């Protein structure tokens, strides 16, 4: 619509214009956030909206199921005088291990210390202490969060704000076990794997030591695999440039993962079973020096307490209580032989 002005308006506009010119030029330009900030916030807003919509749909489904269950209950009550339980909204991740000072900011704005056994909900923001860390079961996968890390938990993804996350899907991949780690520099997902994602102030590093991962950003899509002896690593700089390299399957990048292990109980298991687990935990492949050794490992049964122990403790326990011993090998192999009687 064209704004029609009278001559009187024009005179007052001239006066006003002079005043406004002074005000506005003195105040200067409005500060603006960087393009990167805008992009990141917009991405975050879109993703949160999508989660909120998915959550709303889920609530409706639960409500609909509740109504259906209630209707069914009326029928059942006629026969059994007992109504079925209505479905209850559940958390999306179960914390199995916590150490160091960790907190969680709930979606409702509450902050609390995180304890083992806690169930996390959509939108919970986890912050681990400098020497903290936690392990949780999320979408069927084992997810471990390193120290000084901030992660927001959503139904279909983990948003890594800063720090480091390890994901072990146990080699499986399905719609239910897809674990996507989203960062401001791109997202990482997998094809059945063990992988780590680390977001620093100026770069993203992701490494895979079993299976494959896919990295996606606005400019790039890369697929990265581990092989028998090395891990694949991808580095993404702040400007979005990507480099790939091969790295050892164990080492500093992975060491912290062992400290947040869910552990394994020895009782009733064969040495082979627990050694396979311990080897995977440390990114190594289990090999036996010969068939005889393999047979001893498979046929034996371990005894002890039901306490869950870490992979280094597993190795010590097996070595102390069986004829098996560990032989020198490359860093990607856990080589097991038999001790002479």
């Amino acid at each position, binding site marked *: 619509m064209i704004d029609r002005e009278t001559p009187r308006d024009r005179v007052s506009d001239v006066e*006003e214009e002079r005043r406004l010119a002074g005000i506005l030029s003195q105040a200067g330009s409005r500060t603006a956030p960087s393009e990167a900030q805008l992009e990141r916030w917009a991405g975050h807003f879109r993703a949160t909206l999508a989660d909120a919509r998915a959550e709303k749909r889920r609530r409706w489904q639960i409500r609909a199921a509740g109504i259906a269950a209630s209707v069914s209950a009326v029928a059942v009550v006629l026969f059994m005088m007992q109504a079925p339980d209505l479905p209850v909204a559940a958390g999306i991740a179960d914390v199995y291990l916590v150490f160091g000072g960790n907190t969680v900011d709930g979606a409702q704005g509450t902050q609390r210390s995180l304890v083992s056994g806690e169930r996390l909900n959509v939108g919970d923001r986890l912050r681990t202490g400098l020497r903290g860390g936690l392990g949780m079961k999320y979408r069927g996968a084992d997810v471990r969060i390193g120290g000084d890390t901030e992660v927001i938990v959503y139904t279909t993804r983990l948003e890594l704000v800063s720090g480091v996350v390890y994901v072990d899907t146990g080699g499986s991949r399905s719609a239910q076990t897809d674990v996507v780690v989203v960062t401001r520099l791109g997202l990482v997902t997998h094809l059945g794997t063990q992988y780590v994602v680390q977001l620093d102030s100026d770069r993203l590093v992701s490494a895979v030591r079993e299976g494959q991962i896919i990295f996606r950003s606005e400019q790039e899509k890369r697929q990265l695999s581990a092989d028998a002896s090395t891990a694949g690593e991808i580095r993404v700089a702040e400007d979005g440039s990507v480099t790939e390299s091969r790295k050892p399957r164990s080492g500093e990048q992975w060491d912290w993962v062992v400290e947040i292990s869910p552990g394994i109980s020895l009782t009733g298991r064969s040495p082979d079973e627990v050694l396979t687990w311990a080897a995977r935990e440390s990114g190594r492949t289990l090999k036996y020096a010969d068939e005889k050794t393999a047979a001893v490992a498979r046929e034996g049964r371990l005894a002890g307490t039901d306490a869950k122990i870490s992979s280094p403790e597993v190795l010590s326990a097996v070595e102390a209580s069986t004829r098996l011993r560990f032989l020198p090998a490359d860093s990607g192999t856990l080589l097991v032989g038999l001790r002479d009687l």
Partner: protein
Amino acid sequence: MPAEQSDQDGQLQIARDRRLARRVLRGDQRAIKAFCDEYLPKLYRFARSRLPTDQDADDVVQVVLTNAARRMETYRGEAPLLGWLYQICRREISKHLGAAARHGTVVSFQQDAATESAVAFATAPAADEPEAVSGTDQFAAQVHAALDQLPENYARALEMKYVDGYSSKEIAQSMKLADAAVQSLLARGRRAFRQLYDAADFGLETKDGDGKEAPRRYR
């Protein structure tokens, strides 16, 4: 600007905001982009002018967006969307500053006027909140806050004309409008800005050293 027209503009803005919020809730990507383009810079400036560092503002904007995305369906369109977002932002700023103070990360704010005023602002009851307290930065923040309350095309045209010194023709080229439309836009922008400025009790009548009229700082 006649009060009636101002009221109509306000109602139009609210109706537009209501439609935008509904489309955003439906996941309409164009609406989400429009929302982000218009409101993210404004939220940032709102937070930045009240917090000590860019990082603080960045954190707060992110939290505000989380809350806004989750609560968008509670926006009833009774007031402008920007005001609704600012309300969330105020709460988050208050929480952020409170948390920072508890963890000892806000240091010597007594010697830092901007932070001190931000703390005072954040903890003041909503009815007592001045949009700024004192000083050159606060004056600029006030002017920018007034610009942010205008429709973005008004604010952009005013800024290009009076801050960046572009001619109407250049603005017309940049905004892909006819020259006459830009003149009209500027006239409407000036009126709307003036009204906001008056409502915020700005002084407009003082003169600068050259004898030209210049704004009096916010008291």
